[in-house]
C-alpha cells in the first residue's frame, strides 16, 4: 500500500517535473530577443531618424522642440519601450543619406515620410513595418495658369526634389499620357520654393502631405492651387533593419496601437478615466489590465496606455498636424477602415 502510494507520488512528481520543464521552455520562447530593443533599453534613449524639417511630419517649433506626425511615432515608441516619450534623440536625415544612416546602425528606426517600395525592401535590405501615411504624388501650380488637371501640364516645368521617387513618377505619368512635363531638380526645398516663387517653374510636386505643407510656406498661398489628382501611390512609413524581426514587429504594433486607440475611442484626455472605469474586455486588454500582450512584444504590459497617455491616438495627431487648423489636408485614405479609409489595425488577440 505504502509502496503503491509512493509509486503514485513518484509518478506525479515526474509529471509535475515534466510540466515544469515544458512550461519553462514555453517561457523561454516568449522571451523577446532583439538586439535593437536591448540596445535602446540599455542606452535609456531611442535614436529616431526623422526628416530635417517638413511641416506636418517633422519640424522644430519656435522653442526648438520637435513636432509632427513622424515625431509622434518616435515619442510613442519611446513611451512603449522606455516609459518616457521624452527619451528620444532625433537625427535629421536628408533623403540622400537616410537609408545609409539606418543601415550603419546610427539610428534605431527611420520614421521620415519615406515611401515603401519593393527595391528598398529587397535591394537595400530594409524592413518596412508600418505605413503611417497613405498619400500619392500631388502637384501644386500657379493659379494664373488656369490648369485644373495634371494631364493639362504638357510642356510645363515643375520643381522637384532630387533623390526621391517623384522624378520617376512624373516620367511614367508623362509617358502613359503622352505628354511631357519638364522637371527641375533641386537638392533642398528652400531653393525649390524660391525658384517656383520666382517663376522659374510653373509648379512644385511632392507627396500629398508635403505639397500641402509647401503651399503654406509660399509667400502668398492663395496664388497656388493643388491639383486634385494623385499620380502615384506614396505610402509613407517606418523603416527598420532586417535581421531584427522582433524590433520591426514592435514598431509595427506601436503603429497599430495608435490606430486601435482611435478605434476604441481612447484619447490622451480620457485614457485615465477609461482605464479606471472600463469593463470592456477588448479595452482592458488594450490598456494592459488583462492578458499579456506587452510581454509578447518585449515591453511593459501597459505599453498602449503609455502611448496614448503621452502622444494620443492616430486621429488626434492627424488633427494636430494636418487638420483644418494646421495644413488643412483632408484625411482621405488616412481615415480608419471603418470610415472608408485605409488605416486598419490588426486585432488585439
Amino acid at each position, binding site marked *: 500500500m505504502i509502496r503503491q502510494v509512493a509509486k503514485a507520488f513518484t509518478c506525479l512528481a515526474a509529471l509535475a517535473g515534466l510540466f515544469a520543464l515544458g512550461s519553462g521552455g514555453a517561457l523561454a520562447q516568449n522571451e523577446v530577443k532583439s538586439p535593437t530593443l536591448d540596445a535602446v533599453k540599455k542606452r535609456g534613449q531611442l535614436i529616431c531618424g526623422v526628416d530635417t524639417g517638413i511641416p506636418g511630419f517633422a519640424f522644430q517649433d519656435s522653442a526648438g522642440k520637435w513636432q509632427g506626425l513622424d515625431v509622434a511615432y518616435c515619442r510613442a515608441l519611446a513611451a512603449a519601450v522606455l516609459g518616457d516619450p521624452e527619451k528620444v534623440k532625433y537625427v535629421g536625415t536628408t533623403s540622400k543619406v537616410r537609408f545609409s544612416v539606418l543601415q550603419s546602425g546610427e539610428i534605431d528606426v527611420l520614421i521620415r515620410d519615406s515611401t515603401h517600395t519593393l527595391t528598398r525592401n529587397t535591394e537595400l*535590405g530594409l524592413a518596412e513595418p508600418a505605413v503611417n501615411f497613405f498619400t500619392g504624388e500631388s502637384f501644386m501650380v500657379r493659379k494664373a495658369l488656369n490648369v485644373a488637371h495634371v494631364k493639362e501640364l504638357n510642356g510645363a516645368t515643375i520643381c522637384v526634389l*532630387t*533623390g526621391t521617387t517623384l522624378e520617376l513618377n512624373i*516620367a511614367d505619368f508623362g509617358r502613359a499620357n503622352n505628354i511631357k512635363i519638364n522637371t527641375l531638380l533641386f537638392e533642398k526645398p528652400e531653393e525649390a520654393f524660391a*525658384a517656383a516663387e520666382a517663376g*522659374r517653374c*510653373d509648379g512644385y510636386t511632392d507627396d500629398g502631405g508635403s505639397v500641402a505643407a509647401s503651399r503654406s510656406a509660399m509667400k502668398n498661398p492663395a496664388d497656388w492651387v493643388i491639383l486634385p489628382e494623385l499620380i502615384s501611390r506614396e505610402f509613407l512609413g517606418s523603416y527598420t533593419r532586417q535581421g531584427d524581426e522582433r524590433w520591426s514587429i514592435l514598431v509595427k504594433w506601436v503603429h497599430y496601437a495608435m490606430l486601435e486607440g482611435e478605434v476604441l475611442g481612447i484619447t490622451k484626455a480620457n485614457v485615465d478615466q477609461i482605464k479606471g472605469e472600463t469593463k470592456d474586455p477588448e479595452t482592458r486588454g488594450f490598456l494592459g489590465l488583462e492578458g499579456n500582450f506587452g510581454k509578447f512584444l518585449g515591453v511593459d504590459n501597459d505599453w498602449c496606455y503609455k502611448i496614448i497617455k503621452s502622444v494620443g491616438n492616430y486621429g488626434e495627431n492627424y488633427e494636430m498636424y494636418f487638420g483644418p487648423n494646421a495644413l488643412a489636408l483632408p484625411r482621405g485614405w488616412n481615415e480608419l477602415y471603418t470610415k472608408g479609409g485605409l488605416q486598419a489595425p490588426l486585432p488585439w488577440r
Partner: protein
Amino acid sequence: MVRRPSRRAYVGQWIFLLAVIAGAGLLLRMLAENLALRNMHFGFGFLASPAHFDIPFHLISWSIFDNYGRALLVSLLNTLLVSAMGIVAATLLGLTVGIMRLSVNWLIRNLALVFIESVRNTPQLVQIIFWYFAVLQALPPPRGSIVIPGGLFLNVRGLYVPDVIMSEGGLFAWLAAIALVATPFAWRLKFGAKRVGPWALLLPICAAGLLAAGTERIEFPKLTGFNITGGTQVPPELVALWAGLSIYSSAFIAEIVRSAIEAVPKGQHEAAQSMGLRRAPVLFLIVLPQAIRIMVPQLTSQYLNLIKSSTLGAAVAYPEIFQIFAGTVMNQANKEVETIIIVMAVFLAINLLASAFMNWYNERVALVER
C-alpha cells in the same frame, strides 16, 4: 641583410607599398562583407538598366528609356561644359582684374581690390545661390519675354536661341568642326622655309561655308501656351553656376596674375620702356609672357578647384554629375557605394587629365636652364 642605404630605402618602400595594398584589400573585404550582411550586392551591372527619369538639360540626346550609363555620360558632359566655360571666363576676368590691380589709376586699382576682397571672402555656395536668384529675379516671365533681334527670346526660363538643324546626319557639321580645330595647327605648318601662316584662316571660312551648305532649316523658338517651344534653351541654372564659378575663381586668379607680374624683374619693364615701347606693348609683349611661367602652376590648382566646385551646381538645379549620378541614380538604383566610387573616379580622371595638360604646358613655357 641589406646593407647599402639606397637598397634599404627600396626595401622599405616596397614593404610600405605592400602594407598599403593589404590595408586597401582589407577595407574592400570588410565593405563586401558588410554589404553582404545587409543583403546588398556590390557591382556595376546597374549601369545597363533603364533610368526612367528625365534630365532637364542635356547636350546629347536623352530620353527616359536610356540607361544609367548614358545618364552618367549626359551629366558628365554637363559638368565638363560648365567647367570649361568657367575656366575660360575665370581666366579672362582674372587676367583683367589682376592687371587692373596694378593700374596707376587710383579708382581702377581700388575697384579691383574691392572686387577681389569681397569675392574671396564670401562662401562660394552663397555666391552661386545669389547669382541664381539674381538672374531669376531680373528676368520676366515667359509671356513677357524679352525679344532679341535674330529670333532670340530671353525670360526667366532661360535664353532661347534658334536651333540649326543639319542635314546628312550632321556630316557637314563634323567637317566644319574638324576644320576649326585644325586651324591653329595649320597656322604653324611649314612647307620648306615658308610658313602657312595667315593662309590657315581659309579653313574657318571653309567651315562657315560647310555649315551654310549643310543647314537644312533653322527652327526658331516661339511662344506657345505658357512656354516657349522650339529652339535651344540655355537654362538660367547654367548661367548662374557659370557666373558663380568663374567670378569666384577669377578673384584668386587676379591675385595670381598680380603677384606673377610683380615677380617679373623690374629691369625688364624699364628696359622695354627705354626701347621706346608704350605701356600696353610693354605689358603684353615683355612682362606677361614672362609672368605666365610663374602663373601656370598656381593656375593649375585654381582650375582643378573650379572643376571640383562645379558639384555645387546641385544646389541650383543644374544637372551635373553629382546631382544626377550621386543623387537621382544613387537613390533610384539603390547603389550608394558604387555611384560614389564612380563619381570620385570621374573627378579624379578629369583632374588628372587637366593637370597633365597644364604640366605639359608648364614644361613648354618654362625657362630651360642649363
